[in-house]
């Protein structure tokens, strides 16, 4: 067994263990940290097969962006570090069963398929060639999806602000729980009389 194989198996173990702990840990903050470890493992797999640019993007966007956003929202919505309730046993059993069967089926397909490795010379993976192809308007250019994605990012940014903004109306203060129950009651009333 070569050194690179050992490194690969260590990375694989980190990814899988991080993923399993992220979906089974009952403390939500620990869950987020295990997700971070798993995402870092995937970034190191990208380094392992020499896709340095994707690895850097993975670290910047996922570790620096999404996980930090998740941790912020955990702090905003979970006052105390209380344990999450355990999932219902029946749901856990059936989820495990379906996941195991799905994994077995997918692995069966993967093992039966014959993949022909390419012998063609590898394309340049430098950032300059990636950038040139991304913004090229010729046949294999990606300028249209690039522009579409920039529009999507702008739209989602505005959408996030509109959804999360808190509008205070002075004459009608934000409904508290009691008002909400009353509103529920008045909503249910016509249904019952009809």
């Amino acid at each position, binding site marked *: 067994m*070569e*050194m*690179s*194989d050992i490194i*690969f198996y260590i990375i694989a173990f980190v*990814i*899988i263990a991080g*993923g399993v702990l*992220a*979906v089974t840990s009952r403390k939500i903050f620990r*869950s*987020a940290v295990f997700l971070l470890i*798993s*995402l870092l493992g995937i970034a190191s*797999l990208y380094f392992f*097969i*020499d896709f340095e*640019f*994707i690895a850097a*993007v993975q670290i910047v*966007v*996922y570790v620096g*962006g*999404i996980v930090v*956003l*998740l941790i912020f*929202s955990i702090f905003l*919505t979970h006052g105390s570090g209380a344990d*999450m*309730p355990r999932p219902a046993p029946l*749901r856990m059993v059936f*989820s495990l069963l379906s*996941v*195991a069967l*799905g*994994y077995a089926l*997918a*692995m069966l397909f*993967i*093992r039966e398929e014959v*993949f022909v*490795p*390419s012998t*063609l*010379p590898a394309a340049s*993976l430098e950032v300059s060639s990636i950038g040139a192809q*991304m913004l090229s308007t010729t046949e294999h250019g*990606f300028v249209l*999806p690039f522009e579409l*994605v920039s529009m*999507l*990012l702008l739209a*989602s*940014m505005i*959408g*996030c*602000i509109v*959804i*999360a903004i808190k509008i205070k109306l002075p004459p009608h203060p934000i409904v508290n*729980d009691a008002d909400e129950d009353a509103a529920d009651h008045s909503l249910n009333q016509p249904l019952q009389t009809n």
Partner: protein
Amino acid sequence: MGHIGLLHFLTISCALFFIGVYGFLTRRNLITMLMSIELILNSVNLNFVAFNKFLFPHKLDGLFFTLFIITIAAAEAAVAIAIIINLYRNFRSIDVEDADNLKY
């Protein structure tokens, strides 16, 4: 690169995908469900990069797909967290079972 081939990468990404599916099925908390979705998206990214590396090294298509998936995942996570925070304001909880106003 030793004996590490496409099959190893596909095994890892397959396992990661189904770990994410398991989390999505068992968790009832919106933030942890979002984490499961991130795991699923990452397994897909790993698949794209591995296929690009081992089967089509003369092209960069898998790399570009991965880049765009990462971008869209970031946008999706931001919108989802905005919705989660809005939901928390209205229900004081982010459990999916608590938001049942449209159920009856």
